């Protein structure tokens, strides 16, 4: 297996569904990072079969809401002195602003430049969110 050094201080985003790692990497703007980051794809996993993994050698503020929408099953490990000092499970947020796009072509958000459109979770199982403007459900 590919070997990547453990990190001294930073964050490991684990249990990312295989294939979603790059999306999270981009969403967190890690491609612009000037510190050490690693995106590892298709790591063998007992739980998932295959998973993606991101290691960040830095203390950064993570937007858990964004991560929850992309993949609510991921785990975030906070590392200090090469040890996990905190483990955070992300959940689907009840409300999200500015991340989702309404899929209803008749919705005003498709033609007007509106920042921070709010979506409200209506179905946790199907991951459906309702647009605040047109009330149409959009699934992730």
């Amino acid at each position, binding site marked *: 297996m590919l070997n990547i050094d453990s990190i001294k201080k930073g964050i490991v985003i684990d249990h990312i569904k295989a294939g979603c790692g790059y999306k999270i990497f981009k969403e967190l703007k890690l491609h612009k990072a000037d510190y050490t980051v690693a995106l590892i794809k298709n790591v063998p996993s007992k739980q998932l079969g295959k998973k993606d993994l991101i290691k960040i050698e830095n203390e950064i503020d993570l937007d858990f809401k964004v991560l929850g929408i992309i993949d609510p099953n991921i785990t975030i490990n906070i590392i200090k002195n090469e040890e996990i000092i905190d483990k955070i499970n992300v959940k689907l947020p009840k409300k999200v602003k500015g991340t989702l796009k309404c899929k*209803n072509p008749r919705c005003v958000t498709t033609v007007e430049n509106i920042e921070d459109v709010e979506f409200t979770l209506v179905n946790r199982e199907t991951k459906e969110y309702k647009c605040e403007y047109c009330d149409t459900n959009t699934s992730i």
Partner: protein
Amino acid sequence: MLKGRHLIEPKDFSLEELDEIFTLAEEIIENPRDYLEVCKGKLLGSLFYEPSTRTRFSFEAAMLRLGGQVVGFSEAGSSSVSKGESISDTIKTVGCYTDIAVMRHPKEGAPKLASKNSDIPVINAGDGGHQHPTQTLTDLLTIKALKKDLSNHTIGLCGDLMFGRTVHSLVKAMSRYENIKFVFISPPELKIPDYIKNELKDNNYYETSDIEAAIEDLDILYMTRVQRERFLNEEEYLRLKNSYILNNEKLKNAKEDMIIMHPLPRVNEIHTEVDNDKRAVYFKQARYGMFVRMALIMKLLGVDKNA
């Protein structure tokens, strides 16, 4: 307190606030002369981004009958929108000149966006297939005025129940009142969507495709038009548009005090012979629409006849 508020969807107002509007509308109907100048010096901005006859006329007539004035446009091409202005910029500018704005827009959620950027009250006059709250207010006032109460009715809704925006809004609004039963009468292709039924209790409604069997149960029959623009296939439209044509024959088992409503315009779903039936109230309904808009404008502006 309704002064300064927006009306984007019927649920923006509590039942008590709706009742306040209906009570005022009924007072205006009784004594219209008392209200001839209550909006003197006030200006309504009429922002119609797509053509509308009844709703626009109804709002403009309402404001003029209250002694106010109206400025605005009746299609987007004759406004600064054609120059690419955003909705929020338009409403901010309109708010500099007028006291209250009414907006019809083809995009769903446009009036809500306007209301978020507006210092003056914004009334949604229809946004695509989404909401048309003043039609709902019109329907509720018609029922209240003619049936004396908004509770304890069996309401039949007939025609296009799948795409009919007025039907969806009316069902949602009426389900807030006590002891209301719905009978959904439509061809199988145009049945009421599940998400509307899911909000009702199981024993509060039944579905049928047989208007003649259902009609004797009804206190209110709400007819709707099958809209050509909803169909991709012309043949399908032509077949379904004639599904339910209400005529005197179909009305023979209806209650003597049932009322027949329709949001208008009709095509052929109510035969003109029905117009002379005392139960046909759809033109009265249009008149109630103007009165309820008068009351709404007064409440949102915070004016009254004693001021």
